[in-house]
């Protein structure tokens, strides 16, 4: 299975198009609008906690369950978003023009920014009750999960083999039936991989999303994330270990009950020729398949789906997409709406910036952005130097791969906050410079994507090529230079793109670390946004977010996207 990076790589052009600009204006405009509203909304209860959080191990299973459920709900919402948004973007060229750049911008916005500007609005939905906070939490997890899933689905839909599509048409399948019988199954294996990635991302930010702290609003929803936050505030080391253990258990359960069965089930949808040397197995799936009860229970649903395949909604699918250009009025209306949205966004941004920001503010934020950029570049380079050779070594040994993969998967889910005690203590005791020594926390969760992808690349290396290089006696540095590194290069690029994007997002939890009353700050854009959020300064939140998006998108466009296409052209084994 080919994994694509979670950014738009379709267009090969370097310069931003009008659509990119429109998307940027719209996202920023909405953030500004929300931030403005938040400032004027009367703060409801400044502090809601369902009940006080006690670090009593007896509470931990209950907390773990709540965290697990929130993630499941967010995953459900993300799937719903993926199926609609990505499908719309793929099927309608008119909408796709905007939706894809929009997704590109959205995935560059740090999740803390989404949370900070929407929390007040969510709380106002049910004043004084915990429900609004729960919504906000699920929404935050959603903003960390949805974008890469949508990208994956969109990219799959765009690459459905035309002969499958044509066969579907010839047998008279309507667009709805084609979607469920052809397109969704085809997109399933990469989507499931991305769901697993999203789940890890959810864990990484579990503290931020549960222990919400925006300005005067302080909420600790019962869950593992809040547990960690409280444990850090109380300097309670045993509690930290308990949280790690609980996390491990929940991740294992998710793996066994959700992802293993999904992977084993989706194996039938792979249409690439490379044989999976081992068919993925899952006891849960086997149980479900053999169970008559499940058959009986799902039968009505099956029947309903089968019946629904006869429906042919006119507004859905490719035929509708080709027809839409015929209608001049619809076009006119569409562009008018976009122009209005763009103008509205631009006006809001202008007004906001005019009233609140000076050029000096922008200079500060850009300067901090450069510092964080240097950090990301150095750390990704370091992680590459370390993990590429290890990944190649592991990938060429199937026995080793089998147990390294799940371990790395768990490590990718490891929240940065859990390492705060260690990081803060070491830095304080040895009097180290936080600007340097807090940085590794940024790649704590993201470096594994380099490892995953390099392992995948090395294990996909054809046996004949390995034999050929052995036969020619290629060894040592020559082997790394001419054989090993080139063969994993396309995979590495995908991993590095994922890791780099994730590291920007992670800078928010990595550049500020606290343990008990000790809080360490590094200089950087992540700390800038995190600080602004914690004092409720929406002015700086908006500015910081805009600058971070700018950096992420620009780096993607001028570095990663060309590199991706270079790798595809020159190094892909076909």
């Amino acid at each position, binding site marked *: 299975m080919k994994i694509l990076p979670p950014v738009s790589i379709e267009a090969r052009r370097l310069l931003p198009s009008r659509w990119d600009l429109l998307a940027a204006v719209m996202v920023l405009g909405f953030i500004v609008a929300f931030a403005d509203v938040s400032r004027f909304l009367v703060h409801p209860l400044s502090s809601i906690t369902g009940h006080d959080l006690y670090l009593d191990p007896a509470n931990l299973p209950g907390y773990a369950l709540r965290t697990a459920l929130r993630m499941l709900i967010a995953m459900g919402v993300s799937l719903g978003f993926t199926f609609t948004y990505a499908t719309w973007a793929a099927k309608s060229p008119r909408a796709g023009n905007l939706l894809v750049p929009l997704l590109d911008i959205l995935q560059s916005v740090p999740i803390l920014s989404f949370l900070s500007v929407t929390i007040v609005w969510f709380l106002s939905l049910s004043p004084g009750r915990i429900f609004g906070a729960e919504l906000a939490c699920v929404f935050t997890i959603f903003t960390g999960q949805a974008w890469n899933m949508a990208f994956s689905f969109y990219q799959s839909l765009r690459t459905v083999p035309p002969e499958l599509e044509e066969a579907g048409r010839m047998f008279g399948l309507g667009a709805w039936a084609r979607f469920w019988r052809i397109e969704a199954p085809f997109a399933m294996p990469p989507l499931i991989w991305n769901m697993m990635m999203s789940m890890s991302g959810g864990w990484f930010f579990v503290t931020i999303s549960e222990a919400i702290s925006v300005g005067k609003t302080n909420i600790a929803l019962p869950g593992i994330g809040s547990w960690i936050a409280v444990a850090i505030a109380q300097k309670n080391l045993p509690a930290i270990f308990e949280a790690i253990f609980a996390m491990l258990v929940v991740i294992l359960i998710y793996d066994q009950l959700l992802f293993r069965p999904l992977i084993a089930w989706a194996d039938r949808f792979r249409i690439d020729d490379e044989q999976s040397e081992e068919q993925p197995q899952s006891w849960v799936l086997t149980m479900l*398949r053999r169970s008559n009860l499940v058959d009986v229970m799902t039968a009505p649903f099956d029947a309903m789906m089968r019946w629904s395949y006869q429906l042919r909604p006119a507004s859905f699918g490719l035929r509708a997409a080709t027809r839409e250009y015929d209608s001049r009025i619809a076009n006119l209306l569409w562009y008018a709406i976009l122009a209005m949205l763009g103008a509205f966004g631009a006006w809001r941004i202008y007004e906001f910036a005019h009233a609140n920001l000076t050029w000096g503010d922008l200079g500060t934020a850009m300067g901090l952005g450069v510092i964080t950029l240097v950090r990301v570049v150095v750390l990704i380079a370091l992680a590459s130097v370390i993990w590429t050779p290890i990944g190649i070594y592991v990938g060429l040994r199937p026995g080793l791969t089998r147990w390294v993969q799940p371990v790395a998967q768990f490590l990718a889910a490891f929240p940065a906050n859990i390492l705060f005690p260690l990081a803060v203590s070491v830095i304080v005791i040895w009097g180290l410079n936080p600007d340097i020594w807090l940085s590794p926390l940024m790649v704590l969760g993201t470096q594994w994507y380099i490892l995953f992808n390099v392992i995948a690349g090395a294990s996909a290396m054809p046996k004949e090529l390995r*034999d*050929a290089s*052995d*036969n*020619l*006696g290629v*060894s040592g540095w020559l082997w790394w230079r001419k054989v090993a590194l080139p063969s994993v290069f396309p995979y590495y690029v995908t991993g590095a793109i994922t890791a780099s994007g994730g590291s920007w997002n992670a800078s928010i939890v990595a550049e500020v670390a606290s343990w008990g009353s000790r809080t360490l700050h590094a200089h950087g854009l992540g700390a800038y946004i995190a600080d602004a959020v914690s004092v409720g300064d929406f002015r700086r939140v908006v500015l910081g977010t805009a600058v971070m998006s700018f950096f992420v998108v620009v780096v993607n466009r001028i570095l990663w996207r060309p590199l991706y296409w270079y790798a595809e052209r020159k190094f892909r084994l*076909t």
Partner: protein
Amino acid sequence: MANTNLLEVSHVRRTFPRGQGEELLVLDDVNLTLKQGEIVGLLGRSGSGKSTLLRLIAGLSKPQGGNLSYMGAPIEGPAQGVAMVFQGFALFPWLSVLENVQLGLEALGLPQKEIRARALAAIDLIGLDGYESAYPRELSGGMRQRVGFARAVVVHPNILLMDEPFSALDVLTAENLRTDLIELWGNGKLPIKGIILVTHNIEEAVLMCDRVLLFSSNPGRVSSEIKIDLPQPRDRTSPQFEHYVDQIYVEMTARRVERLREQQARANAGIEMPLVHVSPNQIAGLIEALAAAPYDGKADLPDIAYEQELEVDELFPVAEAMQLLRLAEIEGGDIRLTHMGKRFADADLNERKEIFSRALIGNVPLATHIRRVLDERASHSAPKTRFLDELEDHMAEDAAEDSLKTVVSWARFGELFSYDDDAALFSLENPT
């Protein structure tokens, strides 16, 4: 003279681990010598271990027993002077033609100037002039394999190993490449002392080789050796050429058919007879071809293989399955439809299913056994593991899986019983 032997392989044995401490014997007691100036062909069906033997000679893997020596020294890893040409070309897509050819020389640590000169000479010799800076993806299959040859030849190997080098090419390109190679070899222009060619194409072996070793499978052994005493270039249409082709066909079929008969004749022939996977459509296809003119029920195996554009690899399993089901009889190099086979050819689809079903019940003990178990059970269903475990008492895990897969595919055609892969369940009902 013994010391002119480039390569000596004696009593070589190779097994592969197969889970739970079991081992699959792939090569057993294989002997082979390669003398100077010789092309030796290894001919056999896929799975007969000939590619495994080639990898052992190349030093890419190690035998569990026996000795391999190259120019008198034991082979203990990839030896300098043994070069290989691969079935799938094995070119590095990120290296240009020139860089691909140079790679082996760079590994030898030669000076840059010599590397370049030798690479260009090899490219010239193999007919790749003008393609030096092209990348493999820009070349056709034939040109790619020329790069494969150039890359092997450029290191001036004593032995050239070729692993089905023409089988990924279309017929015309393959023939073109074969003739070019034979011509270069005949002119003494190749800096090579001996060639080993692995193939499953009988005519290719007769066309190119001085000696052909026939491999039998399970486990792989050299069953016989045939010397091809024809001057190069050889003419495919000459009677002597056809004689050699026929002789090899007869050799290859006779031994296998004999073994099959033995198995069938054994009084307690039971479920332990492994089944090789052949689809009912292939069987039906061959029966129809046999029944039609000009064969009218009886054909020379080489003839019908040629007519049907089937390789030995593809033809033999089908013919053997027909023999097993008693739809045809194999004798010498001939295949003849039985009474049942002729009826099958004339029947419509439903009658065919019935004939097939009866052939299964009568001749395939595993099918009979599964059907009986299903009939006896109240639920008329049984899990796959029920039979898999039983089979594994008699054969390796892989063979057991294969046999079950085969019997399922046959039973589905004959509508003898059905199988649900999701639930891994055999049953008598047809899915609703």
